[in-house]
């Protein structure tokens, strides 16, 4: 197991993101217990101190809390808050790079917009609002939530 993940991110941050994904996709429901620091460390083959650091990131962010003598639990409202954060960052994290690449390729604004419209419709995607509910677009029935069930812990186990 590398001390950074393939994107060069420190491992403890990768663990934090793995847990966040699990919270968002429902693998770790609110008010339920998540695996312990040691279990994560063993599963990912990293030092328990590193795993601890990742978990503490989420405790500091108010997404996890500790029940003394029992373990770490997902905080109430964690999922909603994570979705809100990601929605805020959606433009910066996803739209900006796409637009930049489109410009590099010489695509016009209209081309990019049309591509997005086509793809969004064909994927049957719907925007999830901050409360975690699918938002309807222009009065049509919202299609099924497009949040892919990321493998969560299984994905972490695949990382070696």
């Amino acid at each position, binding site marked *: 197991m590398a*001390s950074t993940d393939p994107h060069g991110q420190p491992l403890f941050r990768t663990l934090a993101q793995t847990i966040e994904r699990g919270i968002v996709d429902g693998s770790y429901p609110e008010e339920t217990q998540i695996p312990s620091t040691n279990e994560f460390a063993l599963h990912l083959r990293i030092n328990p101190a590193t795993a601890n650091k990742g978990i503490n990131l989420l405790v500091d962010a108010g997404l996890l809390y500790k029940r003394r003598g029992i373990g770490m639990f997902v905080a109430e409202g964690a999922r909603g808050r994570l979705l809100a954060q990601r929605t805020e960052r959606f433009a910066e994290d996803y739209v900006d790079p796409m637009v930049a690449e489109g410009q590099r390729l010489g695509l016009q604004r209209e081309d990019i917009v049309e591509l997005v419209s086509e793809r969004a419709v064909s994927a049957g995607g719907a925007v999830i609002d901050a409360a975690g509910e699918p938002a309807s677009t222009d009065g049509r029935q919202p299609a099924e939530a497009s949040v892919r069930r990321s493998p969560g812990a299984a994905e972490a186990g695949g990382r070696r």
Partner: protein
Amino acid sequence: MSTAPTATPVLEFPPTVRPLSADAPMSPDAAVSVRGLARRYGEVRALQDVSFDIAPNTICGLLGANGAGKTTLMSLISGQDRPSAGTLQVFGREPFDDAAVLTQLCFARENQAYPDTFAVRHVLTTCPLFLPHWDADFADELVETFRLPLNHKIRKLSRGQLSAVAIVAGLASRAPLTFLDEPYLGLDPTARRRFYDALLRDYAEHPRTILMSTHLIGEVEGFFEQVLVIDDGRLLVDASAEDIAELAFTVSGPAKAVEAATGDRQVLETHRIGGLASAVVLGTPDAAMHRRAAESGLEIGPVGLQDLIAALGAAPHGSAEARAHGQEATR
């Protein structure tokens, strides 16, 4: 594909990874505290001016080329050898000939000498005699895990089996300071996995200080909380796992663009193939670097610890102390 050592002046590492000065006071609470440690054999300087601390209950990686001084250093810390100069304390005391310290140590290596008639099971029965924290049940579990034949003579074992014996002894010792000197020698990947799992699991349940030397860095770098890099008898880098992960990065793409983007940086190593190049660069990429990369079609990426160590070995460099004393770069 050509690998060109870059003609750069002596490298300067960020303070986060620079070793301690020999003048820094010893740390009495450290598991291991070392200042200005040296070991000479006549004219040969196996180790010089090595200073560092290892906090208790840390898994610390000891990295460096063959012959760099890793085993020499571990021999000194484990009290099997005496330094030529410098101070060394283990749990606050000098380890050499100190029974109180020695009972807290276990040095596990594949080429351990045993009495000629010993079978595997004799190792298991004698270890508890001098390792007060020995866990016999755990030892039995490990023997099963590595499928060790209890009645086989040690001298008839394969290299991998010898390593397994060392691992059993090293882990079941539960010694507060455990040395693992290239513990994976001869082990196939499956056996290595079992070793890593056993090590992590037992460390999590029974925290202790573990100093491990390794060349298979990629497989275990996630284990280390601290990393010591030895080069040519000197301590090059003393860093936390996070700090060493951020020590360098790679810039790849058209060779001219790579050169232009890295001209003002310290470059450890550059690989060129045709018109493309990939450079390992000290430091972290800032906003300006990202901008230049985006503009010139360059890719910025991480450096795995294995590649970083290899690049450090290839680059001309010298320690800060060497420069301060007006010595030339070691390469």
